[in-house]
């Protein structure tokens, strides 16, 4: 897209749409949140399981030293001259999103959620500072370590001069990116956005979170994650990418609502879950599946139990952290799973519900016991629940 086209594209609608939107008053601000549906089209995932290009979730790839490392493709779309500089987070983020941007070359913006971006480059640069006593340092690591390097590299490689943003709010980085995309689509109803999330597990952030008690101290196999009664989880990483717009035709799924909250009280979480459901479901309607971020940390189980208690026997409870490991933007992997539910394998099912479709899906995730989010996804391909 050339400059003139961008100018035309960027600049007509916001004034009109936003005038309509500013009529909300304080008392009903919540009801406004559910009004807009965002459709997911192309979606892509690089994760610790076989999810890129060919998806196979039946074979569970196991942890090595309590870390689940991403199965990275060969990144043929990235020129070697550019690839050589990229740390893992940038590589995964760009590698995951590039095919999507080829599907939607006219994207009106690039919206990324990443808690840490290139953490490995960050600490490499830090190590240089200390090891060379602030002497002559190579700036490459520094430039690559800024979290906005992923969105920036995507803009650069696809010559996309439009909206470009990086949300870094730790466990709600992806949720804020998703909300940003939803708002953008209300402002520019004909637009199309790339929405993506990525985080890496480098030795360094593993060390920091390990010392802080967020990873298991004893070796735990992926399949045994939920039966462990100890604190901490398994470390993970990954990237997921979604092309989103307002068009239902050919969409794979629809985001119907999102709610984030900051609390350490499980009763508040439970109440928020009930309110979220009553806001989004018609009377008598029940969610088919709830995908939770249960992560094997005994201290965090209370939040998941609180949420599960809101659902009755109708709803299937599924889990995914044994596949993805724990990381701040792991909910993006859950969303990708929800979009690809035909391959949700038996090892994900915690409790089989009685509802016969796999259409209405609630994703509940939280990070480190304080940042919680509910996402309501509706699958648009009508198939039987996800038991292969």
């Amino acid at each position, binding site marked *: 897209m050339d400059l003139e086209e961008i100018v035309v594209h960027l600049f007509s609608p916001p004034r009109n749409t936003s*005038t309509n939107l500013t009529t909300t008053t304080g008392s009903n601000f919540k009801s406004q949140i559910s009004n807009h549906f965002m459709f997911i089209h192309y979606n892509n995932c690089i994760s610790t399981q076989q999810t890129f290009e060919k998806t196979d979730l039946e074979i569970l790839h196991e942890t090595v030293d309590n870390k689940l490392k991403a199965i990275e493709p060969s990144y043929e779309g990235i020129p070697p001259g550019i690839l050589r500089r990229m740390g893992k987070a940038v590589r995964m983020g760009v590698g995951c999103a590039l095919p999507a941007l080829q599907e939607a070359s006219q994207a009106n913006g690039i919206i990324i959620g990443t808690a840490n971006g290139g953490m490995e480059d960050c600490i490499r640069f830090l190590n240089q500072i200390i090891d060379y006593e602030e002497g002559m340092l190579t700036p490459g690591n520094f430039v690559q370590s800024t979290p906005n390097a992923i969105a920036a590299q995507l803009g650069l490689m696809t010559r996309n001069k439009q909206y470009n*943003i990086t*949300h870094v709010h730790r466990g709600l980085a992806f949720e804020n990116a998703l909300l940003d995309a939803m*708002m953008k689509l209300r402002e520019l109803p004909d637009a199309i956005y790339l929405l993506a999330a990525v985080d890496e597990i480098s030795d360094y952030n593993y060390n920091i979170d390990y010392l802080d008690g967020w990873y298991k101290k004893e070796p735990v196999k992926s399949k045994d994650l939920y039966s462990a009664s100890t604190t901490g989880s398994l470390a993970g990483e990954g990237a997921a990418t979604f092309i989103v717009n307002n068009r239902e035709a050919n969409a794979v799924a629809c985001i119907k609502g999102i709610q984030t909250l*900051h609390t350490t009280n499980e009763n508040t979480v439970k109440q928020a879950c009930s309110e979220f459901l009553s806001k989004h479901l018609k009377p008598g309607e029940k969610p088919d599946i709830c995908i939770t971020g249960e992560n094997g940390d005994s201290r965090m189980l209370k939040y998941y139990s609180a949420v599960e208690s809101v659902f009755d026997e109708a709803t299937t409870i599924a889990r995914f952290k044994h596949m993805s490991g724990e990381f701040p933007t792991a909910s993006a992997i859950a969303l990708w799973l929800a979009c690809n539910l035909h391959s949700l394998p038996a090892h994900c099912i915690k409790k089989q519900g009685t509802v016969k479709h796999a259409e209405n899906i609630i994703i509940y995730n939280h990070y480190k016991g304080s940042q919680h989010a509910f996402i309501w996804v509706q699958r648009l391909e009508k198939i039987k629940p996800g038991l292969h």
Partner: protein
Amino acid sequence: MSGILVTGVGIISAIGNSVNENRASLINKVSGISALSLFNTRYAGLRPCGEIKIETEQLKHLLNAFEKGVTRSSLLGLHAFMEAVADAGLSTRQLQHPGTALIGASTVGGMCLTDELYHDANRDDEGSAYLSSYDCASVNLYLQEKFGIGGIVNTINTACSSSANAIMYGARLLQQGYADIAIVGGTDSLAKFTINGFNALHILSPEHCAPFDRDRKGLNLGEAAAFLVLERGENIKGKKVYAQLTGYGNSNDAFHPSSLSDEGDGPYLAMLQALSVAGMEPSAISFINAHGTATENNDIVESEAMIRLFSRVPSFASTKGNTGHTLGAAAAIEAVYSILNLTHQEIYPALNFKNAIEGKGLVPVQEYQKTAVKNVMSNSFGFGGNCSSLIFSTA
């Protein structure tokens, strides 16, 4: 866009610990750039910085903030946050209401503790008190927890344009009804990490920076925090209003990881979009608070973009000579300065300017002026080509 009003402001920077102190310094051409004295780096005497001369421990006492793991970034953020919230007269109940959002920006976060991070990341010992405080989100999570902010909380990092995007995101939450009050801004403190990073790129000046000067030698880093309280017009019921946020734009230059293109498409598009959202012609802009970091690259490209967009470039200046480049806080403190331009109908001079850049010929405002100011544009451009522009207008 209509009715996004600024009802409170708070700021701490190298030129003052409050809005009033900052204004007085701007009027009196005070520079906060000096040799670093509060932390150890071999560049302390070699690369002057906009350092806030209050030690971290002293800040803790001043703010009565002794939580485990609280960092200098969080303390600066707290300082500005409290001033803004008090200024807007927000109650604890309002802060905890689900309609109150907190959107902040930071690029350094807890990495101001560069040495502690080194030891924790390399697992040298049992772990410091700061294990949960290193990331960019730590500042806003600290504020969220301390005040029990009830609504949407977010942290944005688009390098040096971060807090412009935080302000933009907050305004959009208000416009779309996701929030009734949005507390928006940014915080960054000086760190060995950023000093060495920018130094490795050879863009730190050994002298006081000289924005838009022909012989500029690079930027001075600084530290600061600022927050604004934004509310929708129909909600404010007779409260004092400083200004309105009328326009915003975000564009990517898509040229290079750490420098801007000669044509300045990113800066040009960001400014153009801000005008479009505001429904304004370029001629409506009274004054531009330029990004003006005084790097070779930024100032020439920003000049080019301004010349491209404006048939007559309006009065402009950069406040980086006063505060240094405060990275993730830059757009937030400059938003406060833009609001001061409007509320007091005055413009503040750029420091250290001598000669115009050859081939551009643009001369920033060099003396304090009382003048009619209706619409102020504030620019912020960052690494990764992330360019943003905001427009504030008289209320």
